[in-house]
């Protein structure tokens, strides 16, 4: 599987026939220096916005306007100020975001796992069509159906809350179904057959035998769903009102509300980004395997 090859350390290609003699060796050395230099330069460029974000977040208000790169004095209190400003509105956004992200993730897992299991394991008429429709709903932009969806939620008097974003997760998420199904297809049929011979029902087979083996894929979809909700802007923008704003929508208003106080805006931005960075470094392998699973064969 492609996902695992990424994670394993690469073996130096010692056997690649090199041009002989010192000229060849020099050329290879220069090539080595060039690739590493380019890669490191690019890595610095990729990190630069994050570094500047951090440096600006700890500057004083005036200093951000002077265009200085390095803070003359370090104002760690900016993070606290960003959190507590406007009666702690950011903490309120954080709470809303967590409600959205946690419930959406739990609901998605409960509803999507059985569907993915059925698509991967059962043979039935219309299975292929169902899979094609899953991919189609996964690919189509959410804006295509947003108008009637909004009207529907307005009739239920649920606009202005996070529920229009959470409730649909009880009914399967196309991307998660797709990714889980791709993974479940790779588990040999024999395991399920053995369980069945031992008298396990289909539900028990799924819960006791197959799901423990699918843990990496389940972890991946859970993380993706959590981050999708954490990052989602379009959904909360449509449905929520200021009391139910999430971090993403709130943050987009932060700069305007705090005008020239770029230090506070950057502190708030960094606080939004930080959990993502921490979780990414803790669960890197899960992420990268998950992404690869979506892109390469079934």
């Amino acid at each position, binding site marked *: 599987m*492609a996902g695992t*090859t*990424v994670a394993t*350390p*690469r073996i130096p290609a010692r056997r690649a*026939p090199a041009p002989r003699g010192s000229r060849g060796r020099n050329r290879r050395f220069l090539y080595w220096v060039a690739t590493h230099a380019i*890669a490191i330069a*690019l*890595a610095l460029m*990729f*990190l*630069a*916005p*994050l570094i*500047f*974000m951090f440096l600006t977040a700890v500057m004083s208000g005036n200093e951000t306007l002077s*265009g200085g790169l390095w803070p003359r004095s370090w104002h760690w209190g900016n993070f606290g100020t960003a959190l507590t400003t406007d009666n702690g509105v950011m903490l309120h956004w954080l709470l809303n975001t967590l409600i959205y992200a946690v419930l959406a993730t739990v609901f998605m897992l409960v*509803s*999507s796992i*059985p*569907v993915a*299991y*059925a698509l991967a394991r*059962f043979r039935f008429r219309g299975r292929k069509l*169902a*899979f*094609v429709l899953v*991919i*189609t709903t996964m*690919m189509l*932009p959410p*804006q295509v*159906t*947003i*108008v*009637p969806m909004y009207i529907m939620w307005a009739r239920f008097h649920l606009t202005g809350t996070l529920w229009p974003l959470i409730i649909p997760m*009880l009914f*399967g998420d196309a991307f998660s179904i797709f990714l889980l199904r791709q993974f479940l297809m790779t588990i040999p049929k024999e395991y399920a057959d053995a369980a069945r011979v031992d008298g396990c029902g289909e539900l028990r087979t799924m819960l006791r035998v197959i799901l423990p083996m699918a843990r990496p894929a389940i972890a991946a979809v859970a993380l993706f769903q959590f*981050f999708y909700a*954490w*990052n989602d*802007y*379009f959904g909360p*923008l449509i449905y929520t009102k200021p009391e139910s704003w999430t*971090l*993403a929508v709130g*943050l*987009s208003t932060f*700069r*305007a509300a705090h005008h020239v106080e770029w230090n506070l*805006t*950057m502190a708030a*931005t960094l606080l939004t*980004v930080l959990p993502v960075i921490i979780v990414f*470094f803790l669960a890197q392998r899960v*992420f*990268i395997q998950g992404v*690869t699973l979506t*892109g390469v064969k*079934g």
Partner: protein
Amino acid sequence: MAAALPVRSVTASRARRRHRLRVLAFMSPWLIGFALFFAYPLAATVYFSFYRYNLFQLTPIGLTNYRFLFKDPYAWQAIKNTLWLVVVMVPLRVLFGLGLAQLLSKIKRGGSILRSIFYLPFLIPPVAATVAFVFVVNPGTGPINGLAAKIGIHLPDWFNDPTWTKPGLTLLALWGIGDVMIILLASLLDVPKSLYEAAAIDGANAWQQFRRITLPTISPVLMFSAVTGVIQTLQYFTQAMVAANASQGNADQAGTTTAPGYPDGASLTFPQTLYNEGFQQFNMGYACVLALVLFVVAMFFTLVLLRQFHAFGDDD
């Protein structure tokens, strides 16, 4: 035998019925979800497109919404902008992602750290990434434009200058290249080593190896990245909207005031006009026409993608 047959077929049909019920039970969340949150709203989109509707009053107006599409300057501006992004941003992202993946595939020590660094910006919440990016390249106080000015390079006023807004958004999209890069890196590492060794023995140089071995092998994945890139770009919304608001300092969460797509309509994407029409002006009928345009175009690319899945041999 005549007596045994009916018994057997009864058990067989009971087993079949149990199987059908089981399939139905496992599939039911998705079946309900598909009907309620996809099929119904899609049909309703078609229905509302023949009406004037502002959440209170529903008036049938025939094809007026469709006719208006051809006269709506915002819609055409948005189509042009979205097309620009599809034509420029998508190919650049695939090329840059391939370049980075190729570079990473050559690096043995420290490769995993570099890979994480290149992947990380993709995970940053788009709103946060955009606000931060608008700040660091802001010409007055932004560190990057400031740094460039010190060494004598005058970078443009990215998000306040209509000509540079879309290139600025493209730069932002290249920063978040992680998804494309990881998929391409995986496919590069999947190319059998023996192919390169054989080619090297035959005297093929690096370019020839890339052209004749790497490209043909990874071309399905390249295609996949390009097509999904197009579909993602059709729904490009958050970054354009947030960049416009952050650089303008607009107090409203959305581009409610004045003309949408600051500066001068340069950042107005197609989903954004849909949002403005439907959820700012409450022309919900007309917004449905825009949604249908989006549906037709996105559906075309989705069909291309589905054929690709076929090519991956997904029909067991």
